[in-house]
């Protein structure tokens, strides 16, 4: 479904020219959840934004190919991108607090993609939004429909974001650190919700995270990025149990887990 080949992204206006992503390749099948893991500055968010055609104007794709369902995304015009975004590929972001427009109601924001990409009338759109609210586990949809983002908790807002992203039945969703800003219990709920939506709607998810623990719990395959390059790729079990690249080994060793306590030996009475 998705085929990225030899993607490189760079900043041209700095001396010397800076490459933030180098020769990145990835393929995704429909309905798959693929993780991209890396530390800050590894280029994972850049890759995600490139896939949405949302790179800031200073960053340029210097080489590579991105095929989505047989279409070359890199040849798309501005108008062409507007047709793809929100209709075929959607995206959710890290900060549920700031990713929603503070001055528009929840309902209006959730129906936005429908308004832009379908001819449905207002009543039908509302019906679908209420239905979607139900699906993503938002309580009292009728009441929430007219609420503003500031009246919702972080977890609820992320549910709104997910609902808004899936309302047009997009084939692919890019999730950029969607649970990083959330508490652990909420994180678990959102991950469960993503899994459920993935199964029910068959939406493929490209899941970007810095946290291997999260990737481990939701993805089937993973790409490890380090300084702009994909250093390792494979099924999650494979990569975690027998990492090949040095950086992957470091990452795994640094995961705080309950196997190895750092606080050693000190017996207390």
């Amino acid at each position: 479904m998705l085929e990225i080949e030899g993607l490189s992204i760079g900043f041209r206006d700095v001396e010397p020219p800076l490459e933030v992503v180098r020769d990145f390749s990835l393929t995704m099948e429909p309905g798959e959840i693929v993780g991209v893991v890396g530390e800050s500055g590894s280029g994972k968010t850049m890759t995600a934004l490139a896939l949405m055609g949302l790179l800031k104007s200073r960053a340029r794709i210097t080489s590579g190919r991105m095929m989505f369902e047989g279409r070359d995304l890199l040849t798309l015009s501005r108008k062409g991108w507007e047709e793809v975004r929100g209709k075929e590929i959607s995206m959710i972001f890290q900060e549920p607090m700031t990713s929603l427009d503070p001055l528009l109601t929840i309902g209006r924001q959730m129906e936005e993609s429908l308004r832009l990409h379908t001819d449905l009338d207002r009543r039908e759109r509302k019906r679908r939004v209420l239905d979607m609210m139900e699906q993503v586990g938002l309580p009292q949809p009728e009441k929430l429909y007219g609420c503003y983002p500031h009246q919702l908790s972080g977890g609820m807002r992320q549910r709104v974001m997910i609902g808004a992203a899936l309302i047009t039945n997009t084939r692919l969703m890019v999730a950029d650190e969607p649970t990083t800003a959330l508490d652990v219990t909420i994180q678990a709920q959102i991950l469960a919700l993503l899994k459920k939506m993935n199964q029910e709607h068959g939406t493929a998810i490209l899941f970007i995270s810095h946290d291997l623990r999260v990737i481990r719990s939701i993805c089937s395959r993973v790409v490890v990025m380090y300084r702009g390059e994909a250093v390792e790729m494979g099924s999650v079990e494979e990569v975690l149990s027998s990492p090949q690249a040095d950086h992957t080994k470091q990452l795994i060793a640094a995961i705080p887990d309950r196997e190895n306590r750092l606080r050693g030996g000190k017996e207390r009475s």
Partner: protein
Amino acid sequence: MKYLIKKIGTLIITLLIISLLSFLAFQVIPGDAALSKLGTGATGEKREELRREMGLDRPVLERYGSWLLDFIRGDMGESYTYSIPVSEMIKEKLPVTLAIAVMAFICMLAVSIPLGLLAGKYSGRLPDKILMVLDQLVMSVPGFFMGILITCLFGLVLHWFTPGGYVSYQEGWGPFLGYLIFPALSIALPKCAMGIKLLRSSVIGELGQDYVRTAYSRGNSQRQVLFGHVLKNSLLPVVTFWALAVADIVASSVILEQVFTIPGLGTLLVQSISNRDHPVVQAVIVLVAGLVVVINFFVDVLYGIIDPRVEVH
């Protein structure tokens, strides 16, 4: 609703305090009203008599109370210089100044919103740079000089109006407004410059927000993002500026009335200050300050309507 009631409460208290301050300010002038009215040559006895007659021997707060009641009823005292009721003098001048202020305000909105959006959207590129240089230049021109330049250009070079040829509204609203458009323009231009600059930086700030990225990710076009999401958000901080601009516009009209020789509230105020005609000065000040406070109140309410977050805090 609670927000509205709270705001109305604040409005009333502010008005009271402003009137009290203005009243007190004119109580501490060296040489009291009786002296001003009689001149320095008067004898002590005569002064005492007049003081009693004017009620100056009563306690301050009591005098404030009766002054305020009179003021609300429309009795603003009598001019020292002309010995006619202040209210009549003001009633005649008020529409002139109001007309200038309203026109200047509308002009400011009409120019600064589209240009500010434009500059923000194209920030760093040529149209923005040109606009910013012009902006800075306009902001550096003293208000009265702007008036003089406009007189020069439209009056003396283009002959669109006759400088000094002010037509009273009693003689016809058309020519009246036609003349006032030029002082209004002189007042509005510097405010436009400031408004553009503010809106521009606000738009730039909002364009960098996460929700803008979200809007693009749903397939909004640039135009849809700008008008559907960014505009409303970036106007919020500018609304506060508009409220402050109202006060400035009124103040500038004091000066521009001089430049264009218009007999408005400003001219009255300047004359009265020169003549030390305190009742008139006091009345004009209280009126203008009151007006500004009331307009601020409406802006606050408007703010509450635009921003759903206000009710909560």
